[in-house]
């Protein structure tokens, strides 16, 4: 497209290559910093050229993200990033497209685009910063806020039951869903790298702490003293074990999941469910997504990763088919096709 677009072997990229010169303007202590850092660590591990990464965001604290990356970036309008990202990816499928969104951006105003992008399975990666609050507008409840939560707009407590991003995603036909947490940089980086390899829409929910308006929202999962008991790190093909000593696990009891202690009551590791992220049926993935403390650990890691044709691939496929059938190759030919007549 320009003299700048020349293909050339690039030196190995580092985190610094992905850091922009703009001052980061999140509140001190905001979970967003850790996510930014994790992405900057992840990108060098993804075999793409720097100029092919694009970050598209909506509006919110989270959505300021692209300014802090030295890649191509577009801070768009509230809730519409999935649609903009769709246009970007279709226009140039070679690009590695990341959408950055908050829980309000994605699930309040952007809810429709969110489910439609998943349905289309367009090959982009969505990082959903879930702090269960509207940060940028100073503390109203969001569609993921807890029932009963007191916020600026719910002084007597919220009366809406929260959405589960993962459940919505599955119902919308989502092919990839992972969950991670701002307190675990290693897990974040690893998941970001893996999600970029998934063909189709990768949705990554990141439990993120807003120190100002919803501090400790995820404490039940992150509190240092009990986090091992309330985080289940799923790995494909591995049994679902957790706890500091990996002495707890998940088992199916009829249609319900239950937590068992290995060894106790004769429960053996063999009974423990083995994680299958590639299973197309959504039932167990639904169950895993739905778990939360205090009765269950929170499932982290890649919960679902199944194959399905992506929208961008199908567009390309129909393009190729259309070339085979085409009876004209140019606009001049099209104009002159079909019913025309000549005035002499």
């Amino acid at each position, binding site marked *: *497209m*320009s*003299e*700048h*677009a*020349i293909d*050339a072997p690039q030196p190995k990229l580092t985190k610094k290559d992905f850091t*922009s010169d*703009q001052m980061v303007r999140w509140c001190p202590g905001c979970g967003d910093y850790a996510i930014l850092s994790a992405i900057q660590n992840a990108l060098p591990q993804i075999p793409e*050229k*720097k*100029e*092919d*990464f*694009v970050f*598209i965001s909506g509006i919110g604290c989270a959505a300021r993200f*692209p*300014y802090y*990356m030295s890649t*191509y*970036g*577009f*801070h*768009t*309008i509230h809730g*519409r990033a*999935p*649609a*903009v*990202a*769709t*246009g*970007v*990816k*279709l*226009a*140039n499928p*070679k*690009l590695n497209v990341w959408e950055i969104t908050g829980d309000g951006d994605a699930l309040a105003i952007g809810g*429709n*685009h969110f489910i*439609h992008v998943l349905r289309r399975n367009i090959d982009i990666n969505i990082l959903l910063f879930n702090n269960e609050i509207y940060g940028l507008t100073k503390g109203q409840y969001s569609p993921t806020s807890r029932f009963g939560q007191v916020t600026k707009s719910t002084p007597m407590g919220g009366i809406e039951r929260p959405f589960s991003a993962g459940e919505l995603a599955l119902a919308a036909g989502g092919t990839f869903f992972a969950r991670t947490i701002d307190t675990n940089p290693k897990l974040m980086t690893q998941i970001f790298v893996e999600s970029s390899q998934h063909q189709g829409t990768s949705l990554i929910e990141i439990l993120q702490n807003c120190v100002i308006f919803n501090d400790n929202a995820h404490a039940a999962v992150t509190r240092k003293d009990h986090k091992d008991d309330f985080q289940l790190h799923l790995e494909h093909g591995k049994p679902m074990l957790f706890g500091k000593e990996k002495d707890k696990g998940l088992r199916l009891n009829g249609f319900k999941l239950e937590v068992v202690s290995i060894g106790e009551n004769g429960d053996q590791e063999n009974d423990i469910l083995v994680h299958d992220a590639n299973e197309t049926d959504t039932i167990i993935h639904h169950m895993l997504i739905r778990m939360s403390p205090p009765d269950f650990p929170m499932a982290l890691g890649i919960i679902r990763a199944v194959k399905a044709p992506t929208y961008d691939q199908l567009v390309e496929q*129909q*393009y190729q088919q*259309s*070339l085979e*059938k*085409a009876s004209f*190759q*140019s*606009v001049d030919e*099209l*104009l*002159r096709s*079909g*019913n*025309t*007549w*000549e*005035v002499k």
Partner: protein
Amino acid sequence: MSKTMPVELDKVVIRFAGDSGDGMQLTGSQFTYTSAMLGNDLATFPDFPAEIRAPQGTVEGVSGFQVQIGKIDIYTPGDLADILIAMNPAALRSNINWVRKGGNIILDTDYFQDRNIKKAGYKTNPMEDGSLDDYKIIEAPITSLTKTALKGIELDNKSIIRCKNMFALGMMYWLFDRSKDETIKFLESKFRKKPVLVEANKKALNAGYNYAITIRAIASNYKIPAAKIEKGIYRHISGNQASAWGLLAAAEKVGRKLFYGSYPITPASDILHELTKYKNLGVITLQAEDEIAAVCSAIGASYAGQLGVTASAGPGIALKGEAIGLAIMAEIPLIIIDVQRGGPSTGLPTKTEQADLNLVLYGRNSDSPCIVIAPSTPANCFEYIFQAARLSIEHMTPVIFLSDGYLANGSEPWKLPSMADLPEINAPQFKGSEQEFQPYLRDPKKMSRYWVVPGMAGLEHRLGGLEKEDITGNISYDPENHQKMIDIRADKVKAVANFIPEQQVIGATSGELLLVGWGSTYGSMLSAVKELEKEGVKIGLAHINYLNPLPKNLGTILGAYNKVLVCELNSGQLANYLRHLFPEYRYLQLNKVQGLPFKITEIKEKIKSILNN
């Protein structure tokens, strides 16, 4: 088939009307196509109901198609029909006002029994109560004659009756001295896979033709000689098709693929249907989940280097305002097509109107200027959308293209251009070094940014909807910078005036009265001016295609007349707009908001009343 000598006419207006299921649109277009092949100039306009197929026999379910053909320049489908063919009482009732007194009306008498007369809302039988005395009525039992003609054909009754439109068409072909050949070819190709239908339809067509000869309903038939038309290859084209094709041409010219993100809505959907056929030309069409996603996907595509386009009608355009503001701020190409329809709200979805001018000029938060262009005939949608694309790309800013239902569905013969003759479109490329690059550097003349897109190494940068610092494009809340950027965005759009043609004037270039209009009123206004000219009244016509910015010489033109009359199918939006841009002049107005185009006579009368004052 002995023939009397046909009577020659300069032009004639024909109106076909029947139930939505009667195939009137097809009948009309066949007649049109055949006439075009004969070298007539012509213009057409279909008139749909808002319901898909309201109950048979009711006024709400009537579908109409009007065509004017002639040997002299035809600019509109005509004010009133010289001949109406009405397939049932409802068609008669809802179309009688569109027939000139003294005109001919062909009725399918088979449908004029009590039940259908009542269904149409008539209290008494119009064939008997004298209400048709002002017209020449031709009674034809079209349905039963069709049945008779098709006796023996292996088809169910319903399918046989469906052929009655071909019977009617056959009658018209004889009356206007047209050959049936093109329609026969058409039938053979359309029903390729069902030979029995080819046979049935052909039989009906021939039967109608012969019946017309036999009854000689009209003393003789008519001949409309070929128009004096520029040499070249022609095709028949509607505004929506021309818009779609103009986009294809622009994309090919600039060497970018076309991305069309849209959500269906009457009367814009046909552009989607059309473009989605040309995947082989690299077009990507996305039927988005709503209008907002549609425009945003187009923004994304433009951001990534394709030509991003979206389209809708008024209700959908209202939804796109916020996103258009983003494209204005990000300064990227984007074409927004508004195929206007009757409003407000859901309004009159299948009718035409020009009432979104205010919306597209002002329907965004804050000062957010946008280029606005309106085509003025179905065929010139091609040319003007091509220009819309050129300006949007070369000036890196959104362009709104204001079509309407009348242009979109109307059609006319179109002399095919050759791609080589179309103007170049040059995407603004950044030619400096990586070090010199800044996202809000500008081309000095056009004030456009450079179209630097993801994938270009070394030029990575960030865009967004927050106010940006001049040159660097970084977020800036600085008051002076904000004023500067507000001014730059305004000046940039104003500067487009240097890159568009001057306003042309038709007729008198100065004097008593200037007519000003825009968009689809062109045909009626031009006709009015030409007809008055013949009557010895000379006035000027400035019909505007470039609405924002306006052509640079428009002010001078306005000043050259004693009076200015602005004609619009809205309550006076262009007139008000001119009042702010050229407050030094007075403006008279002719406005009509009826979901219908102007009649030529309406314009002429208004002009005369002004001139006689």
